[in-house]
């Protein structure tokens, strides 16, 4: 199913342009509105995808002495991308904007499925290029690219085919393993490869054997003579996985078609329609915002903070009555999730503590993972989740919900800061206790672990004002021409503030004397306050439009 009609498009464009050229006013209008193809392309996704390629390249260059690091990164990338692409296929393949657009048009489910499958293959073609470049770098760094280019191409191709098939198997038999938390952990590990010591890379090199992509990388290493020759045999199970594709594909098609055929606008698609037309937000708002639904008889009744969980009660006790109203509005009925998230963090911390006392033969990075997950769960690292910043119209021009209501910048800041401060403080005992014990595991003094924990908490605390600014900027943009001196000055100021914050944070960790440490802490808070104050000044003077005109998707 081809959706584009370049020929008719070209003819019509030619006719339209010819006609408009006769009218200067129409021609001027046309030139004002037209958007060239390079501005319609979503470069952020392209940059993000190729950023990973750059990461692999840089990892190879950075650790030129340890060639296995490239293979570790590639193996992790292959598994992570298989899970992510499967996840995307799961969530967006069957229920997505594409489906919604085509639902009311005469497109059969088979045609739609064919289109989605082709999109999946194309996305894997991009991954194939990354694999080839990655293995090419590895071979190039070992000065054997010329001899081994066939091995490089074949390994990359096998990696890609295995990835497609692995994704299909996951989709069929274990869709839950494509969970975003597993994906995030793998993507995180790729970044962590930059910082892991040689021992850590060695451990990871063994750990990737748990995945088919690891088998391929080990097989490749054996083929190019950098691992034991027996490891070539690891290609066999990988080839077996890849060979499953002809059997997996029909089953996948059958399953997907069954799901597609059962879809109507009152199913999952309805949710999408609701999002597009704003009804879901409206319903959610009616259910959760203080002016609750008339049917329940709770019209204009405020939420009962006293009956929520302990952390929400704590925050509620600190907020004034008006701030509570603002918080309820901005949270859109999410009251209760902070304590739940804290409980998750406590659970992961406890699990991590057990790992800390595990035998030293286990990889040293392992106990760090629960720490990371707990932090992501309990700490408002990015300022927390506030529904009020979201837009009810995600596909068209978007305006955040709060913009339509009389709520000031300062009121929102105050609510967010109080909530974030208490959440961070509540999380800090877990974190500091954990870092202290973790310190013992990595053979540093107990006090050093505590000190590192306190420093991280200080960074999170100081960051909160910038996180508030981040939330405000999320759905806003300058709708005027971006390249004005004011815009450039704002970007430079923003970069300076973030740069000053980062420099202060790094200095705090490395400073030798208490005086320097104190100055660095002050620097963090000052840069954060400065950034917030500058944005507040712009915001309150009406320099920021509360609307985002979406670029091409």
């Amino acid at each position: 199913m081809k959706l584009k009609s370049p020929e008719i498009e070209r003819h019509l464009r030619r006719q339209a342009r010819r006609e408009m050229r006769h009218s200067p006013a129409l021609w001027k209008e046309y030139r004002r509105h037209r958007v060239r193809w390079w501005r319609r392309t979503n470069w952020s996704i392209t940059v993000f995808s190729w950023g990973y390629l750059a990461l692999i390249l840089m990892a190879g260059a950075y650790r030129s002495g340890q060639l296995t690091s490239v293979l570790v990164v590639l193996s992790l990338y292959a598994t992570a991308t298989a899970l992510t692409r499967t996840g995307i296929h799961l969530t967006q393949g069957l229920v997505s904007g594409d489906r919604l657009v085509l639902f009311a048009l005469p497109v059969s489910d088979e045609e739609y499925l064919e289109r989605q499958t082709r999109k999946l293959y194309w996305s894997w073609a991009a991954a194939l290029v990354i694999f080839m470049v990655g293995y090419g770098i590895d071979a190039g760094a070992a000065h054997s690219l010329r001899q081994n280019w066939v091995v490089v191409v074949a390994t990359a191709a096998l990696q890609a085919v295995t990835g497609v098939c692995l994704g299909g198997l996951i989709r069929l038999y274990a869709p839950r393993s494509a969970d975003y938390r597993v994906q995030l952990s793998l993507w995180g590990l790729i970044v962590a490869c930059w910082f892991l010591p040689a021992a850590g890379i060695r451990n990871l090199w063994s750990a990737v054997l748990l995945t088919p992509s690891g088998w391929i990388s080990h097989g490749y290493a054996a083929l190019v003579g950098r691992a034991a020759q027996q490891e070539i045999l690891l290609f066999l199970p990988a080839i077996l996985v890849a060979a499953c594709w002809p059997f997996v594909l029909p089953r996948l098609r059958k399953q997907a078609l069954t799901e597609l055929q059962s879809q109507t606008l009152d199913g999952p698609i309805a949710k999408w329609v609701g999002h597009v037309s704003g009804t879901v937000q409206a319903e959610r708002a009616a259910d959760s915002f203080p002016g609750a639904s008339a049917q329940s008889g709770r019209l204009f009744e405020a939420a009962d903070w006293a009956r929520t969980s302990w952390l929400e009660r704590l925050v509620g006790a600190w907020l004034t009555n008006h701030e509570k109203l603002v918080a309820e509005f901005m949270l859109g009925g999410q009251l209760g999730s902070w304590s739940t998230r804290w409980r998750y963090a406590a659970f992961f911390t406890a699990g991590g503590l057990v790992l800390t006392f595990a035998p030293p033969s286990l990889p040293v990075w392992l106990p760090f993972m629960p720490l990371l997950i707990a932090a992501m769960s309990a700490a408002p690292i990015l300022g927390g989740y506030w529904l009020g910043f979201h837009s009810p119209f995600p596909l068209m021009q978007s305006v955040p919900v709060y913009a339509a209501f009389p709520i000031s910048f300062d009121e929102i800041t105050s609510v967010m800061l109080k909530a974030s401060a208490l959440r961070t403080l509540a999380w800090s005992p877990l974190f500091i206790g954990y870092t202290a014990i973790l310190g013992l595991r990595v053979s540093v003094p107990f006090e050093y672990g505590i000190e590192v924990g306190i420093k991280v908490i200080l960074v999170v605390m100081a960051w909160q004002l910038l996180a508030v600014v981040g939330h405000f900027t999320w759905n806003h943009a300058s709708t005027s021409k971006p390249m004005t001196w004011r815009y450039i000055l704002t970007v430079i100021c923003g970069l300076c503030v973030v740069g000053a914050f980062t420099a202060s944070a790094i200095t705090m960790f490395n400073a030798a004397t208490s005086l320097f440490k104190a100055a660095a802490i002050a620097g963090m808070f000052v840069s954060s306050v400065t950034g917030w104050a500058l944005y507040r000044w712009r915001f309150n003077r009406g320099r920021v439009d509360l609307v985002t005109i979406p670029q091409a998707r």
Partner: protein
Amino acid sequence: MAASGCFSVPEAINSAFNMQISLQSVSKRYGKVCALDNVTLTLEPGQIVSVLGANGAGKTTLLRCLSGVVVPTSGSITFDSKVFHRRETDLRRRLAFLPDFPLAFANNTVLRHIGMVLRLYGAAGARVEPRVMDLLRGFDLLPLVDTPFGRLSRGQAYKTALTALLAVDPELLLLDEPFASGMDPNGITFLKREARAAAARGRAIVYTTQILDIAEKLSDRVCIIHHGEVRHYAPLAEVQSLAAHPEQGSALEQIFQQLRGDGA
């Protein structure tokens, strides 16, 4: 019959139409809510039908059922005595549904969107081009031909979606709240003219609206839905005659007041 004062319609899609569309005891429930209750009606070719009703009465659900976007809980919809299902893409190519919020790929330009719709309906070809040009001119969309859908205002987006579907010239055109779509007065006037011309060519047009003045001027038949039930489905004049005091202003308005007064 060709419409006077209107552009030419490509032969391929200007064939004679006399498709009969019938709903037999169609009901649709969303959980506990009965959006459509035992609806039976027949749509004749060459007629403009306005569907009226209070908010939540079931107007949009009726259009969604007709387009195959939702499946009736019970009852059946037939096109020329053939039971209609979503999987019947050939049948679906003979009708077009435009929701109140037009849906399109945000990065597709106006022309690309039109090209895509024409291709999907099998209407792409050199002969349809003059028609598209006329529609672009009529809706003042010419300067926007290279603008992505995501950058259009709601009214412009609706006009773009409408242009594509009017260029296809389907036998049945289902429009959800076209007069509350943000279109400018020129667009509304042009749509009314196009609707009349399409009906004259034998197409059936079914639209929902809350604006009774428009319904009174642009309807051959009126369908009034109340709480999911079709209360009236008759030619406009016949429905108007049901008003208690036809001499005192809008007849449809009075019927609505009567329905409200019934407390049904």
